[in-house]
């Protein structure tokens, strides 16, 4: 967390998000198609891509300078540390984006009430993205040119969350809205919290076997 603050990676990921939304928005603006649906699609894809951007830093530095060795030797289990890592990743990349969504989506044509609801949807679903990201970070640990490989592995695994999230956001803009929708996404996040730390720790142990 402190490292992320010191490294200004919060600024990086949020500015990446803003620039991505603006460029894609401008691109869609030229086609004359700027309905709420396209704006929602842009927001979701930009969120997924900007959390993809910072996955690589999750374990890489710790792996290279040997901090990860100490994590494995320490009394805390590796799963706990992975959960904390995912949580810090969520705070540093996804939480600023969630605060930005009302600011950036109102000029793009989403009403204030809808944008607040959409950022609530984001709030409950983006932890899943962070937890899934730990899988990719562990898989490409120590690979020099692993960035492309990482996106090949990780983007398809974001799909369940993106599909559910986008469908629910579309329902929100059609004013068919139910709190159950949030619960489904929160359940997805909890499933990821339950599964991914164990798989990630198993994958990290592979690198040390």
């Amino acid at each position, binding site marked *: 967390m402190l490292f992320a603050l010191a490294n200004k990676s919060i600024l990086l990921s949020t500015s990446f998000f803003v620039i991505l939304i603006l460029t894609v928005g401008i691109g869609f603006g030229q086609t004359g198609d700027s309905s709420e649906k396209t704006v929602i699609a842009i927001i979701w894809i930009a969120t997924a891509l900007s959390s993809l951007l910072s996955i690589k830093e999750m374990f890489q530095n710790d792996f290279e300078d040997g901090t990860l060795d100490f994590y494995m030797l320490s009394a805390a289990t590796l799963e706990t540390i992975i959960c904390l890592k995912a949580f810090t990743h969520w705070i540093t990349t996804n939480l600023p984006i969630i605060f930005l969504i009302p600011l950036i989506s109102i000029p793009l044509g989403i009403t204030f009430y809808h944008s607040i609801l959409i950022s609530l949807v984001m709030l409950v679903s983006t932890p899943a993205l962070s937890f899934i990201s730990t899988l990719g970070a562990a*898989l490409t640990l120590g690979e020099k040119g692993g960035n492309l490989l990482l996106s090949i592995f990780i983007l398809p*695994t974001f799909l*369940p969350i993106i599909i559910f999230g986008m*469908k629910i956001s579309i329902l929100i803009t059609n004013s068919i809205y139910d709190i159950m929708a949030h619960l489904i996404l929160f359940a997805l996040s909890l499933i990821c919290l339950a599964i991914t730390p164990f*798989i990630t720790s198993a994958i990290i142990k*592979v690198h040390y076997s």
Partner: protein
Amino acid sequence: MIKYRKNIWEFANPNNFLRITNKITPFFIILTIITLSTGIIWGLFFTPEDYRQGSSVKIIYVHVPAAFLAINIYFMMFVTSVIWLIRRHHVSLIAAKSAAPIGFIMTLSAILTGAIWGKPIWGTYWAWDPRLTSFSILLMFYIGYISIWQTMKFSDKIADLSSWLCIIGSIFALMSRYAVFFWDQGLHQGASLSLDKKENIDDVFYFPLLLSMAGFVFLFLTLLVIKIKTEIQKRRLNILLSTGNT
């Protein structure tokens, strides 16, 4: 007298595997030729046309077996990856590795034949229908699994990583499947063949379809066995070359 084998794990020894498959492979090839050719020829030339779909119904004899294999090959890869992680049998790992490109081709051919069939019947090559979407997701997971083998040099570490990737892929492919089916059942019709349903397709189409499915399964098995044998020999050769003993 035939020696009684205690358990299935004896096949995991590469030597046993090679010895047995060397005997079996010709039968597999013959069976493939017989079932595939009779299934396809019977299906394409000796079945009536559907009253609504016309002759385009005949693509079912490639489409359904390919789709059936695409899903089940991924399941097979999942099982063999788990076996590799638990019991460390190299044949099992090589089976997963060799099955992936075949499964990729099967997925691709299922999608392509579906697109060819879809143009006259649905009026479009592609629609974001749940089944089509979940197949494109399956294709992505195949690409991910193949790319880990293509880009990294072989080692036990990469073997473990690829097995974990396969497990992650099967979890998330399943999740995506339920995510896309959650909202609507889509344009695509239900399963043509299922054991627990009364309403299957007509017998006229059913038997040639079963034959061509058996043909595809044998084709897969033949290709898989040949690929595994090649891979085992390749790894032996690499070990010989690296140690310098000729």
